[in-house]
């Protein structure tokens, strides 16, 4: 009979716990609290109800039921939340994790298998958590003759670049984006240009033949598909006259650009598959030829980081497709519109005789608005919505569309074989570049014929 801990003694167990508690308390006291205080010295503190929200006040208000909602709102509208949680990293990581699980189950269903099944009672829903724990607890093995600084830096740089890409994606109306640049689309091109560098550096630093072959293949593929990728998006820039991604989304309030530029959308989707190294363009990771391509020598959490980065990249590309061709967050608002008086003046409650005796104010209704005293009402047609309603509806539409695009990115993996390298380069350099020029000429024709653009019919 196997026992998990054959030499278990309660004394050692308690000693371990007390040791850990002692060291944690010591380190927090000596390093953690000074670090927090130094950070607070530089951090801009929000002002709630005319009071500067210091750390002490925040802890006090945490247990005050009337101040909890303003506290949470101040947190939601802080820059840190924006970067770490909602339109930034955390949101993207959630979608990326869901993508990994759905990909495994969906491919299994396509190929008449069951896929992950045992972890968690329902359809292996905990498989992802199990894999994450496994990756964290595994040993990181560095090849003996690897170039160690570059080999360590490559996964971190990969995740960092993917997160920079995610930071440029606007998710909801009202400036829900980490970095709202006037040259957002150009910044996207600049960030995409970093991926081949990191790939080839990590492949070279592993000092092994399979990663190097995979890295050279990845470089060929990414560099040659970057050109049609950039050209296929220029049609939208010509029609909208802006490079700001939020403005591109707002220009599609009545119809998405895919109606006018299906060729550009097809070219962008194909180049997207190639940039993401997904089947049928997964030559850099061809597991039946070169083990795992440029990922071969990665182990443990380094491999986990590279996978996290590549799925973040997948989410960002799908979101970029949604923003540019499918209209981003635009769509019918789910929530019923509100009467302005209902929010500004409250609901009058009559007594039995019909005389209004009291007014019920509903500060909970515009829960996600920034300042509860200034109702931000936005006109959409004849209906009025608060910005919180538009936020929730926009996020739902954005996520629905993005998930749809991710589904179509995952689908070829169950259907298509891998194509040859020379065919890939032929497609990239001859066909896709030609098609993207056709797309640009369609856009120019629409502008000069006066259909869309300044002074156009639509």
């Amino acid at each position: 009979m196997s026992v998990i801990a054959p030499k278990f003694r309660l004394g050692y167990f308690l000693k371990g716990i007390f040791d850990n508690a002692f060291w944690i308390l010591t380190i927090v006291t000596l390093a953690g609290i000074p670090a927090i205080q130094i950070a607070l010295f530089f951090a801009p503190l929000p002002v709630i109800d005319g009071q500067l929200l210091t750390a002490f006040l925040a802890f006090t208000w945490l247990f005050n039921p009337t101040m909890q909602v303003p506290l949470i709102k101040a947190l939601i509208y802080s820059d840190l939340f924006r970067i770490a949680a909602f339109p930034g990293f955390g949101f993207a990581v959630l979608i990326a994790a869901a993508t990994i699980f759905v990909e495994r189950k969906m491919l299994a269903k396509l190929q008449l298998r069951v896929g992950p099944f045992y972890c968690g009672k329902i359809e292996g829903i905990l498989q992802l958590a199990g894999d994450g724990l496994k990756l964290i607890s595994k040993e990181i093995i560095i090849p003996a003759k690897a170039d160690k600084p570059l080999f360590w830096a490559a996964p971190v740089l990969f995740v960092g670049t993917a997160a920079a890409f995610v930071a440029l994606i606007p998710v909801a109306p009202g400036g829900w984006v980490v970095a709202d640049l006037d040259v957002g689309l150009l910044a996207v091109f600049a960030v995409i240009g970093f991926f081949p560098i990191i790939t080839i550096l990590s492949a070279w630093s592993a000092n092994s033949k399979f990663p190097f072959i995979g890295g050279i293949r990845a470089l060929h593929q990414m560099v040659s598909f970057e050109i049609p990728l950039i050209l296929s998006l220029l049609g939208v820039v010509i029609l909208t006259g802006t490079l700001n991604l939020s403005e591109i989304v707002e220009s599609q309030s009545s119809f998405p650009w895919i109606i006018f530029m299906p060729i550009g959308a097809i070219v962008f989707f194909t180049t997207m598959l190639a940039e993401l190294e997904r089947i049928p363009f997964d030559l850099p990771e061809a597991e039946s030829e070169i083990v795992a391509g440029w990922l071969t020598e990665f182990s443990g959490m380094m491999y986990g980081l590279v996978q996290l980065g590549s799925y973040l990249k997948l989410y960002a590309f799908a979101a970029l497709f949604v923003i540019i061709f499918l209209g981003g967050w635009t769509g019918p608002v789910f929530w019923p519109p509100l009467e302005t008086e209902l929010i500004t003046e409250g609901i009058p409650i009559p007594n039995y005789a019909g005389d209004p005796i009291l007014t019920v104010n509903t500060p909970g209704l515009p829960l996600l608005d920034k300042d509860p005293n200034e109702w931000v009402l936005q006109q959409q047609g004849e209906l009025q919505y608060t910005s919180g309603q538009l936020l929730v509806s926009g996020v739902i539409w954005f996520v629905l569309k993005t998930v749809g695009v991710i589904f179509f990115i995952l689908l070829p993996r169950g259907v298509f074989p891998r194509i040859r390298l020379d065919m890939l380069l032929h497609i990239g350099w001859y066909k896709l570049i030609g098609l993207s020029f056709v797309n640009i000429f369609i856009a120019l024709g629409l502008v000069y014929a006066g259909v869309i653009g300044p002074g156009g019919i639509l």
Partner: protein
Amino acid sequence: MADALFLAISVLTIGSAIAALEMRSLVYGSIALMGTLGGVAGFYVMLDSPFVAMFQLAVYVGSIAVLILFTVMLVKRELIFKKIEDPKRKFAGIGLMLIVILALGAIIMDSGIKTISTDSDPVDFREIGGDFLVYYWPALILMALILAGSVMGALVLARREDTIENEQ
């Protein structure tokens, strides 16, 4: 704040430029070159022209540096380069660099750069685009034709007859 940022970017740019010249490893040298080009992009951002900065990143770091890396990795260093360690050459190089920098600085200081007011509004890149399309359109079309011609020439040069016959 802006001064500290300027100093940091200057140190990054010049330091990585020196590293790019002095590194024995070609791969690390090209990484340092990327640092230099990225630092120049940082200067563009500080000069309120993010448009040029993004193009600097996309073209120089994203393409030129990749080209250099690609070339370096396919070359065996030991066969081509011999180490020449000569202190005289080193000092001569440093002296030449100092002379060139001093001369350039003197020229720039003599020019009218001091009279430019620094707090004027940045030029919007849409205006630059409009100027290109209205006043400088012959030059733009000439550049476009030259670029298209060079791309077509590259495609013709890279065309291999045997693969196309195989596909048919």
